[in-house]
């Protein structure tokens, strides 16, 4: 457990006041976008002078409530955890916020189309998510599309946009070695990554037989799942943040060939912050404002070879889009922008006694 979480879970928070965050899927260190967004939220809340308790289980949270603990704000992550905690949160917190991450039922519906999931699962997750939206004071999502979708179901007062990922450092756009490997960031533990890499290897690479690009895959891919790759694929496994940064800044492009998925992707924010050119499907750019042309987008396999050729050659247009990306992440996810979003979220929320 990192120093950050240890200090939060054993801190000296007062009996009344402060913020409680409940996330049962939190990995420490953060290994996925969801965990990273919680860490970014917690450390920013702390930097703004708030006491924060991080609870790793719903049972831990409800037990603290039974012991009389009260908070100004509860931030509940993931649908099932949120619903298990809601009754207790209503009794113990001034305001209850659902941290949505993405629309699970939409992501699952897309995966179900590939035949990977039992059909009832999508409907069950929609029911779970609708209950979160209806019963929390506010639900947060990282893309305007998700906010609109939830707003259509429960009204605009109950849902808001939130940046989710914080960027503290950016790299200036520079010309890159076109012969260096492309990078794919994401592990086999996230189902859309498996679908994405399979599509790229099966549908795109055969169209580039005369000039096959090298590809580095970063993330956990157990040996028995590496059959989706081919001879051009080099499996790097999970990397430290320093090594990841080195890969990103050396690559002529990050590929994001997602066929399914929902919401803002942390890998895309990482690429933009490091000025790494992006070749992506439109799903990869979900959550990025269309006002900022930041990547090279193709949804059909036959458009990808020319996109990859162009981006690997570099040039002013490629550098310009990388510059757009840096401006975008600073304006939207930079430390100041993120702190401003957190301040707005927490403003005026105080625990005033149990709900009537």
């Amino acid at each position, binding site marked *: 457990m990192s120093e950050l979480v240890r200090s939060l879970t054993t801190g000296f928070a007062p009996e009344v006041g402060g913020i409680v965050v409940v996330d049962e*899927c939190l*990995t420490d260190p953060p*290994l*996925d976008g*969801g965990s990273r967004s919680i860490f970014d939220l917690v450390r920013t809340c702390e930097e703004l002078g708030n006491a924060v308790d991080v609870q790793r289980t*719903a049972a831990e949270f409800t037990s603290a409530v039974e012991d009389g603990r009260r908070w100004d704000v509860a931030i509940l992550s*993931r*649908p*099932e955890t949120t*619903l*298990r*905690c*809601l*009754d*207790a949160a209503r009794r113990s917190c001034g305001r209850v916020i659902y941290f949505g991450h993405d629309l*699970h039922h939409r*992501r*699952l519906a897309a*995966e179900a189309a590939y035949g*990977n*999931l*039992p059909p*009832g*699962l999508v*409907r*069950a997750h*929609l*029911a*779970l998510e*609708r*209950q979160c939206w209806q019963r929390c004071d506010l639900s947060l999502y990282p893309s305007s599309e998700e906010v609109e979708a939830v707003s259509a179901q429960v009204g605009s007062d109950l849902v808001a946009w939130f940046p989710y990922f914080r960027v503290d450092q950016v790299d200036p756009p520079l010309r890159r070695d076109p012969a260096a490997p492309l990078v794919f960031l994401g*592990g*086999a*533990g*996230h*189902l*859309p990554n*498996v679908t994405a890499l399979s599509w790229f290897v099966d549908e795109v690479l055969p169209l580039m037989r005369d000039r096959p690009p090298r590809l580095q895959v970063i993330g*956990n*891919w*157990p040996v028995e*799942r590496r059959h989706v790759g081919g001879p051009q694929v080099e499996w790097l496994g999970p990397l430290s943040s320093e090594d990841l940064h080195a890969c990103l800044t050396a690559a002529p492009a990050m590929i994001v060939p997602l066929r399914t998925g929902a919401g803002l992707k942390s890998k895309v924010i990482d690429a933009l912050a490091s000025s790494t050119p992006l070749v992506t499907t439109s799903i990869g750019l979900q959550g990025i404002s269309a006002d900022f042309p930041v990547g090279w987008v193709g949804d059909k396999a036959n458009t990808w070879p020319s996109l990859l050729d162009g981006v690997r050659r570099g040039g002013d247009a490629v550098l310009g889009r990388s510059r757009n990306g840096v401006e975008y992440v600073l304006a939207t996810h930079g430390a100041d922008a993120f702190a401003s979003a957190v301040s707005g979220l927490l403003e005026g929320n105080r625990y005033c006694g149990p709900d009537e």
Partner: protein
Amino acid sequence: MSESEKIQTCRWELATPDVVSDVLDDEAVIINLDTGVYFQAVGDASRIWVSVINGADTGIALDEGPRQELDQFVSLLVGHGLVRPRSEGDSPGTVLSEWAVGSLILDSHDDLQDLLALDPVHDVESTAGWPQQPSK
């Protein structure tokens, strides 16, 4: 709950926080988060479900056929842990919805048991990948 308590109880509420329910179109979706079993009640059964968890009196006078069907339906709800007796201090609930005899059907699906207890995309074994679940 003892058998005598079950018989005497006529007003119910959703067994939160372990049970979650929502109505999508004409279908009540009911999920027991503890067991991971997912239930569906469609049409009249959905409306009866909603009125039951809103505290409708299930002990009202009924003809024998409807009485038997309602009792069986409520027994199923209780047996699956979906409802619990309503607290005594609670205000009276809604009126029991009407239904066509033979329509009070509660379908259950346990094929989602393993997946519903997880976020099926994030909560997987990080080294083995989908669909391996994390070792407990």
